[in-house]
């Protein structure tokens, strides 16, 4: 990362955009205490993550992009484990676990080991685990990849609801349409540098739409001019109406 400075307000959904290898996951990992910055400060609700990591981490719920999780535990064991680690009381634990199992359709699978879950189910149990302590800051790395349409819709609604309660959501994504629909503010990162940040309206003012602006900033060609695979005839240009 190169001199990253960013402030996200309470009650805000912040979308973090960037091409592959731009530094999105690295930023998120530093924000969650997985990686240490060489210099600088990270504060979560006023608590310095580097000076008081335990107190800061209590305020964070993290969903990784690879959904690595303790696969030998059952779904319910994992959620109880997360509730224990974050010291969630009995009543809240029961209510939240029931709620998330129900929302994600995992109630029937809760007593099975996570290793038997599908990719999407693993992702859902990770999301439920990250929310079981109702974190002030919910951080998600590429959260919508692999979710079915209903679950993706539920997740977006959940993110909005989490913010309505005064909490903050910080997520990275490649899907610009999702960012446009959900986020209050957006940051664009490229080569480890934050190159743009603002509300969607502010960004739109600088380009025709978010996609064009993103491609313009990150140096990706606006119209893909991919050469054909070896031995294949060239593809017709985009928008060309003739038959092949």
């Amino acid at each position, binding site marked *: 990362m190169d001199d990253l400075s960013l402030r996200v307000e309470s009650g805000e959904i912040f979308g973090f955009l960037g091409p592959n290898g731009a530094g999105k996951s690295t930023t998120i990992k530093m924000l969650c205490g997985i990686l240490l910055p060489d210099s600088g400060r990270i504060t979560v609700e006023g608590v310095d993550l580097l000076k008081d990591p*335990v107190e800061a981490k209590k305020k964070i719920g993290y969903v*990784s992009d690879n959904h*690595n999780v*303790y696969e030998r535990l059952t779904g319910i064991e994992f959620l109880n484990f997360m509730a*224990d680690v974050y010291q969630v009381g009995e009543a809240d634990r029961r209510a939240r676990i029931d709620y998330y199992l129900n929302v994600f359709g995992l109630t029937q*699978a*809760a*007593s*099975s080991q996570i290793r038997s879950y*599908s990719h999407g189910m693993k992702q859902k149990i990770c999301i439920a685990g990250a929310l079981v302590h109702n974190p002030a800051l919910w951080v998600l790395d590429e959260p919508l990849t692999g979710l079915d349409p209903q679950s993706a819709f539920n997740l977006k609604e959940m993110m909005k609801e989490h913010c309505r309660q005064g909490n903050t959501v910080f997520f990275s994504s490649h899907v610009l349409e999702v960012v446009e629909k959900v986020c209050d503010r957006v940051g664009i990162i490229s080569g480890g540098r934050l190159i743009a940040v603002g509300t969607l309206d502010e960004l739109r003012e600088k380009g025709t739409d978010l996609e064009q602006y993103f491609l313009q900033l990150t140096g990706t060609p606006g119209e893909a001019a991919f050469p054909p695979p070896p031995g294949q005839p060239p593809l017709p240009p985009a928008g060309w109406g003739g038959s092949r």
Partner: protein
Amino acid sequence: MSSFWTLFKVTLKNMLRFDRKKGTLPLMIVGFAAVGLVFGFMIVAGTLGIGQYFVEYDAVPEFLTILFLVTQAVVLIFGTATIVGVMFFSRDTEFVLALPVRSSVLFFAKLTYVYLTELLISAFVVLTGGITMGLMAGMGPAYYLLLLVSVFVLPLLPLLLAALLALPIMYLFSFFRYKGALTSVVLLLLFAAALVGWYAVFGGMMGSDETIVLPEEAILALKQAMAWVIPDISLARLICGVDVLPNLGITVGVFAALGGLACAVSAGIFRRSLSAQLEQTWTAKAGKVEYRGSSAARALLKKDFKEIFRNPTLAFYTLLQVAFCPIMLLVLGLMTQSFEGMAEEAAAASLTAVIEGLFFLGMIAVSMNYTALSTLTREGENFPLMKTFPLPFGEQIRTKVLLARLITAVSVAVGCLTLTFFLRGEIWQNAFLLVFLLIYGDGITHLLCSFDISNPKLHYESLSAALKNNVNSFKAMGVALAVIVPAALLYVLAFSLGQSGALPYPYVVIAAWILLIGGAAVLNVVFRRILYRNVERRVARIED
């Protein structure tokens, strides 16, 4: 054939690629050499000690057969866990299943990798013991040449057997919910059966009949028992030039039949068995949801316990630590009693019990604590989760160490009980041994955890490979050698001085024990400090 080589090479590269930046390869070579020297010395000394009787009574093939059995028992014990880890629970299973290769090609490519990893054991045991015996018996060049060939042939038998047994077990267990735990139990039963079978062969030789004390009678009994150990006895006779053609026929026939069987069975079952591991087998269980709260430390402990015992590889290694040395002590105890009739003299029996206890429990059982050696390694790619928990790393590590300490304590206690019942000796000496081993074992468990924290393997194809090809296990063995050998020497010195009347017995031995326990306590404190010093910073910097 080309797809076999392609798959085999990829598997080998994936499993054995060392991190050159960390310089682990030279350390592993030094570790292997150190452990090899110690065990090599033991095998050569043992062969020199009893080899003359085998030469005198024309029983060199029977001696070789014993070497072969020991080799195969060790290969079976360690190879079974590797087979399950590499062949059934490897991360590349899904990928290789999609490749356009035959099931049997897949099976043999993976089995060949396991075979190569076990070849070292075979080479080491057979060559050190076999060459020593060859020199004593004045064997010709053909003996040494065929001995070398046998190194490559021997691991095939236990590995093919283990692979064939694993096929139906894995297929059957894919339908069970807690297949990991079930597999572990069945693997341990298999392991126990292998050792009991091994002992049964020796039972025919030295066994429960305490009247066999003369070498001639023992060798005759051994010859009778070994006559049934096919194909090992045939291979041994072939090497010694006895009835070459029939023994060649039997050896080649048995291995060809087993290989053919493996080919046929693997073609039919292996792919289905692998697929079954990948199937989504979660089942709806309404009304089973429970909400049980506990402290964060207890939650971590429970999580770790479940992760270990539901994982067949980890459960196998963990339970092996508790079971292996007591079983070996039991076997040794019965053999020592019957062969030397030492049970009659309590003091002399104590010497045997303490030395065997120090070696098997102090050096092997305590050092092969895979729960400690996998403190962070077993987290694998889940490791970053640990960093997100709102708990100090020291507290998280403490719960992991606690589990490893409990396993060490159980292993030592079971071992000392076995010693007391089967090697007898003086009870007070066994009590001192227990206290020494508990304190020392507790200390070194901290050190083993520290080794893993300093150099964890978090990205691997199979946990079994990560644990076996781990330089930390050699470091542990080195520390154990540095502590246990001087401790044993001190004890033997005190015992000898007491028995010779130079110093009053048992006071001199009691003084030695107090000194040893004091030393163990100091080491315990030092090893704890090594683990917990800068633990927050050390964990934070992992993968940073």
